[in-house]
Structure formats: C-alpha cells, structure tokens
C-alpha cells in the first residue's frame, strides 16, 4: 500500500530531513526512517512493522485506559456517599453514618510530625553527602546504604517501628511511633531528592563564595541551601504524599482499630486514611464498598492537592541556571 514515488527506491530528500531532525532532538524519535529497496520489495515486513507499531501503541493505551477505568470506578461508586457529613463523622456500624474524621485527623497528625522529623534529617544528610563527605569507604557505604534502603518493602519498616518504637522505646501504638516509622520510611526518598536539588546549584556560586574566604559550612548555609530549597521542598512534599497513601507500615503500628476520636496529642492512638479504607473494603456489606470508594476520593484529593503544591513550588521558585 505504498505511494509509487516511494517504490522507486531511496528518497534522498526525505532521508536527510530525517537525519537532520533526529540530530536536533534529544531522543531518537524521528518520522518514518528512509525506506531502502529491501523494504519496498517485502510487503510482509512492512505490514509487520505496522502491526508492531499498533501493538506497542496498545501497551501505552492499556496503561492509560487502566488509569481511566480505575478513576471512573472509584468516582462512580464513591461520589454518592461523599458529602459534608462524611468528612465530619466518625466511622460507624451503619454505612450511611460513617465518616473519615478520625482517619483524616490521624493522617494530618502523622504527616505534620513526619515532616517535622524528616526535613531537618533529610536535608542535613544530603548537605553532608554533597558538600562535606570525602569519597572514602565510610561515605560510600552511606550512599550505597541509602539506595538500598529505598528498596526495602514498607512493611519491613512497619516491623522495625513495632519492635523499636512501639515496644523497645515504650511509645505504644501512638501517633509519635507512627510518625517516627514514617520518617525512616521516606528518609531515603527525601535524601535523594535533596541531593539532586543540591547538585543542581552551579559550582561557580560555591567557587565565588570560597574565593571570598567562606568556609564550607558558610557556603552550605548561605549559598547552597537557599538556592536548593525549592527543589528540596518539592521533593519533600512528593515524599510526604507517597507516605500518606502508605497503609502497610501504619497497620503494624496502629493495628486495625476502630477509633471514634481524633488524636489530641502525640501519644494518643490513631488511624489513617488508607487503614480506614482497608477496614471498609473488608466489611461484608456491599454499602461499605461505596463508603470505601468515598474514602479513596478523599485520599486522592489530598494527594492531588499535595502534588499540585509540589509542582507549584518547583515552577514558582526554582531557577534554571
């Protein structure tokens, strides 16, 4: 099914266009490559090319379609249950009286404390690794270790928190034990994001400060940190938004409780949104599926808000050099 002009063989003009456009692009994403005589002779190879293209494209469509179906499924089930009472009610045995108040406040508490612990720890570690640490075996261990920690399953952190914070430190199944566990879980992500932000500060700025006689700490404090803060903050917000959706490590800390109060201090018991949703999914009555979907909508709205905030912070404050 090809045009007669193409069957004549190699089209020099098209080929050079193609090469020129490929050179200016970072990725090899050119239009149809030059069609040699061999291709033109073999219809099957051309058809196979088209079929393969459709299959590769279909894989992308499967991913996007999966996302769309998931969102439609959740929205169609959950929206009828979503109203102001749902935000303001405690969980109940009756589906129509159930709400996310305890879980929402628990999530806010956990996230607030986690941010409080994670931000100084993560930024300090990143500054140390990028600005101070020499390339010796001790610091290489720290780097490799952080990469490996990022791959440890979240429920393992839950077991760690249960053994260390809940039992050894005697914090009990409290908000503070949950927040400390969550801190350890997202710390590698925050460190890696902060390192990237610090790396993007141009070396000339540091050299200028050193030339004026600044010490390493002065350079870090007054030059690197202020310039890296937007990147660090967007990384921190993204890490926190991942933490909000984490149920597994919180289940081992809080256990699956049915709470009808909001935490009033860091030593109170708590539940979080994903645990509450998990509870509802597990209930036999069909109505609770709808309640669970409504809970998911609340969770997704919180996530969307945080991701938008991260993108806003990055675009608004980050400079390109």
């Amino acid at each position, binding site marked *: 099914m090809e045009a007669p002009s193409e069957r004549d063989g190699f089209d020099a003009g098209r080929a050079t266009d193609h090469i020129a456009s490929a050179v200016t692009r970072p990725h090899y994403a050119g239009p149809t490559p030059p069609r*040699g005589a061999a291709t033109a002779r073999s219809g099957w190879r051309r058809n196979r090319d088209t079929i393969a293209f459709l299959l590769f494209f279909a894989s*992308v469509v499967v991913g996007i379609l999966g996302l769309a*179906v998931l969102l439609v499924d959740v929205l169609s089930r959950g929206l009828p249950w979503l109203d102001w009472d749902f935000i303001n009610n405690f969980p109940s045995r009756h589906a129509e009286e159930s709400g996310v108040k305890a879980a929402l406040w628990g999530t806010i508490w956990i996230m607030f404390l986690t941010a409080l612990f994670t931000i100084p720890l993560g930024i300090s570690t990143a500054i140390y690794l990028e600005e101070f640490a020499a390339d010796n075996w001790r610091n290489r261990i*720290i780097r490799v270790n952080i990469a490996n920690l990022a791959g440890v399953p979240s429920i393992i952190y839950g077991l*760690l928190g249960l053994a260390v914070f809940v039992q050894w430190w005697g914090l009990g199944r409290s908000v503070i034990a949950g927040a400390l566990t969550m801190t350890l879980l997202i710390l590698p992500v925050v460190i890696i994001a902060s390192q990237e932000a610090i790396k993007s500060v141009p070396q000339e700025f540091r050299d200028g400060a050193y030339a004026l006689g600044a010490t390493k700490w002065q350079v870090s404090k007054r030059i690197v940190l202020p310039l890296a803060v937007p990147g660090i903050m967007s990384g921190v917000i993204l890490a926190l938004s991942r933490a909000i959706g984490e149920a597994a490590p919180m289940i081992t800390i809080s256990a699956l409780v049915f709470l009808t109060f909001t935490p009033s201090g860091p030593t109170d018991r708590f539940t979080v949104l994903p645990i509450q949703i998990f509870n509802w999914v597990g209930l036999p009555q069909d109505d609770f599926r709808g309640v669970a979907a409504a809970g998911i909508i609340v969770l997704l709205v919180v996530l969307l808000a945080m991701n938008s905030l991260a993108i806003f912070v990055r675009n608004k404050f980050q400079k390109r050099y």
Partner: protein
Amino acid sequence: MANQDIKPNTAVIPGPRPFGRGRGRRLAPRIEEFAAVWVLRAAATVSVVTTIAIVFTLLRESFAFFQDVPVWEFIGGTKWTPLFKPSSFGVLPLVGGTLLVTAVAGLTSLTFGIGAAIFLSEYAPDAVRRVIKPVLEVLAGIPTVVYGFFALTFVTPIIRWFFPDANIFNALSAGLVMGLMIMPMVSTLSEDAMVAVPRSLRDGAYALGATRFEVAVKIVVPAALPGIVAALILGLSRAIGETMIVTIAAGATPNLTFNPLEGIQAMTAYIVQVNQGESPHGSVIFKTMFAVGLVLFLMTLAMNIAGQWAIRRYRNRY
C-alpha cells in the same frame, strides 16, 4: 573606637582568608563550623543505623522464633497454619503465594511496560512523549490500597465472568493490578536504557534497509537488554514487597499452588493478618511476623542488588 587603632601601615586585606588559619580569624565561626560538621555527620549516620536496626530486629526475633520452631521445618515445610492447632510453620505456601502473584505481575508489566517503552523511545514524537509519560507515572503514585479496592471490586468480577469457578480472592486479579502498578516503573527504566543506545547503531540498521520494528527488536532491545532486565528485576522486587493489593484481593488462605485462580496468602498479607488481632510481644505468632519479614527482606535485597548491578552494567556499556 576601633577606628583610632588603625595605623596606615597595617595593610590587611579585608575579609577572612580562604581556609586560612591564625591571623584575623575569629573563634566563633570556627566553633560553628566544627559543630555543624558533626551535626550533619550525625544526621547522615541515621540511615546507616536504620539499616543496622532493621537487620538486627529481624534477626533477633527470628532467632527467638527458631528456638521454638526448627529452621528446617520453617524453610522446608509446606503447611502454614500458625493460628490454629495443631500449628505448623512451613513458610513455603507464603513464599509460593507471593511468587505466584509476582509472576503474574511480572508478565503483565513485562508485556505492557516494554511495549510502552519501545513506543515511547522509538516511535513517539517528542510532543506525544511529553504528554504520555506523566500520565503513565500517575499510575505509580496511586496508593496501593486503591489498587486493592480496584482489583477486588472491578477486576475480580470480570475474571469470575470468564472463569466462573475462580475464587473471589485470587492471585490473578491481584497480579494483574499489581502489573498495572509497576508498569510505569518498568517502562521508564527500560526507556532510559533504550534512549542510551547510541544513534549510530540505529542509523546503521536503517541504512541497510531495516524497518522501525526490526531496528527496535533486533538492535535497540538487545543493546538495552541489561537495562531492561534491571527494570524488570526492580519492578518485581516492588511487587514482592507490595502489601495492600495482595491483602485485599488475593486472600488469606496459605496455599501452595500454581493455579492463579485460587486464593493464596502472600508473605506481606500474613504480616497484616497477624496485626489484625493483638498478639502479645514474645508469643510465637508475634515472632513469626519477623521470621517471614526476614525472608521477605532477603528476597527483595537480593533482587535490588542484582538490579543495581545490571543498571551499572548498561551504563558502563556506552
């Protein structure tokens, strides 16, 4: 009245000297410098301490567990019934359940993830890539409890429509949805590896008259293979450690089977199950969590190390 002290011939260049010692340096900044370095160094140690604490905790509770249950019964046993009498502690059904779900997820994400990666790296114009990639990456940001809900309420009914004898809780549903979850990870990492393949290789093949499909499958994929393997390994490691999808959709019946239509229990799902009731510290049930956690930790650690090794290999290649 500091000005009165200045004499014309003490020509001191203003400002401290870079890293200078002695003359003109005040004490306070040096103390601050010293303190700052130690505070930062202490912060950096937290991550190392975390690793040590993870390993120590898992090992300590596991050793205590192996005082009660022989190691060989745990590793070789094919029955896992810790919560009933007579209790039996063979971990193989849990490992098998995890691996079954992971295999389904791996096949799903391999097929669609690599298809998507080839499309994005070899076919899609830049404008299309810039739209599709962020949309796919939204998939990676959705909480796993949401995927679990989706698997149970949407995918499972479809599976049961095709296979009426499938269990409500089955490994297939959990595996398919988990494949959807790790697909963006597999496709992004594979695409990175494909983009790193030098253009000269493609140009050579095009000059010989190859089609785009032939270039993609015979040139780019083989050249990027270590990266693709790494992507798959890291994706599977995520799948093994994933908790909520398998807990919600795959069931809580330890079952050593190759049939994905049956209900199973994954290792992570067992840990959640134990936490659904209060189990006192020091009880055998409490210790089983850590023994299962140790197996899980070792499996993911091995896969992560293998994945990082493969990534380093393809980075060094070109």
